[in-house]
């Protein structure tokens, strides 16, 4: 975009505030706003203009249970070192630190994998085949780096970014097999986790993974019941 054109700047700010600016364009705009105070102010003006629409709605009292649940969540958040006042999108150095940490973990997984194979008894290539996949949650900075060793039935997941947690639900990881989705397990939204892969996956020539939004604890039916949030192929890494 021509970053100097005031009409275009105002229109992008308007569509951002309205919510019709989506996907990659929205993320690009969010990055731009971080370093452009005038643009940030224009977004603020649009937010205020549009909020006047909401001011016309008659207030409606939420159920009393909402306040009680809120108090519990605040009490729970106090267990953690909360009340940090950091800017919403992660600064660039943190993104890089995240990528570097993810890469280090992938490297570590590769390293440990080769170490446990006794010298002189190298297994056939398929035995040690390692795959990696990067799953990104649209409209957020949340992503997972997955490393898979199908022959061992192992998957290691590293979560990075700020997960937009909205109430109680789980994220379930699926292998999209030729016969349909096969559950792998619940994805952690922070930190790391290890999941078991289905045996059949080892003989699959190409691996596609997907994440769906499910009730807490995962899909009750063994098939995805909520929307698919993201999917990606796993690429051969070693």
């Amino acid at each position: 975009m021509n970053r100097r054109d005031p009409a275009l700047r105002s229109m992008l700010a308007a569509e951002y505030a309205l919510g019709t600016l989506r996907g990659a364009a929205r993320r690009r705009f969010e990055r731009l706003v971080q370093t452009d105070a005038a643009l940030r102010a224009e977004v603020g003006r649009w937010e205020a203009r549009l909020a006047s629409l909401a001011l016309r709605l008659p207030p409606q009292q939420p159920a009393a249970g909402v306040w009680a649940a809120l108090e519990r969540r605040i009490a729970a958040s106090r267990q953690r070192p909360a009340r940090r006042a950091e800017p919403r999108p992660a600064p660039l150095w943190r993104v890089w630190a995240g990528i570097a940490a993810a890469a280090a973990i992938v490297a570590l997984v590769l390293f440990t994998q080769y170490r446990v194979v006794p010298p002189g008894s190298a297994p056939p290539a398929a035995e040690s085949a390692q795959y990696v996949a990067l799953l990104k949650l649209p409209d957020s900075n949340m992503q997972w780096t997955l490393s898979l060793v199908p022959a061992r039935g192992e998957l290691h997941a590293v979560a990075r970014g700020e997960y937009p947690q909205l109430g109680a639900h789980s994220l379930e990881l699926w292998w999209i097999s030729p016969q349909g989705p096969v559950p792998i397990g619940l994805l952690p939204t922070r930190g790391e986790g290890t999941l078991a892969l289905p045996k059949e996956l080892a003989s699959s020539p190409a691996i596609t993974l997907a994440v769906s939004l499910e009730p807490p604890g995962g899909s009750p039916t063994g098939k995805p019941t909520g929307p698919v949030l993201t999917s990606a192929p796993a690429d051969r890494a070693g």
Partner: protein
Amino acid sequence: MNPTAAEPQRLTMLLAAVGRGDERAFAELYRISAGHLYALLLRILQRSDWAEEALQDCFLKIWQKAETYEPSRGAPLTWLLTVARYRALDLLRMKRPETELPDDDGAAALEATAAGDDPQEGAAAAQSSERLAECMRRLSTEQRRSVLLAYFRGYSHPELARALQAPLGTVKSWVRRGLARLRECLEESAA
């Protein structure tokens, strides 16, 4: 609800106290502003369970980030409503796949809201809200519907195209021209 309770000065003071971790101020902030946020969340999400979930998320965020509110950047209720609306949009994107739209009860109901009776706030908010309603009335029907469906339903351009049964490019220009005319009108009436 006491119609004067959401006065800007009171809310600004409460937000400052919440920013310092004052729990009683937080409880009062919730008491006088939750109704406004909940009404908006209910309108956008159309389901009371989602709206209640989003309301909790909003107030948790407000508790954690109240100190980031700057009075110079706008009225406190505007800030709170903006927090609520972005939260609702996030929730919609996660819960409503692009292919699955709720049956729409028509843009007419939304227009009734936008052009409707007196808002419930103090005098300053009423004034800005009245100005906006007047400017909304000056848009073409298509422009007005596009802006209102995007605001109150969280529709994307493709969702608008489907709801209004018009080509994507046409809908995009309705949104853009509608917003541009809205800005011109609001700037004129403020001058």
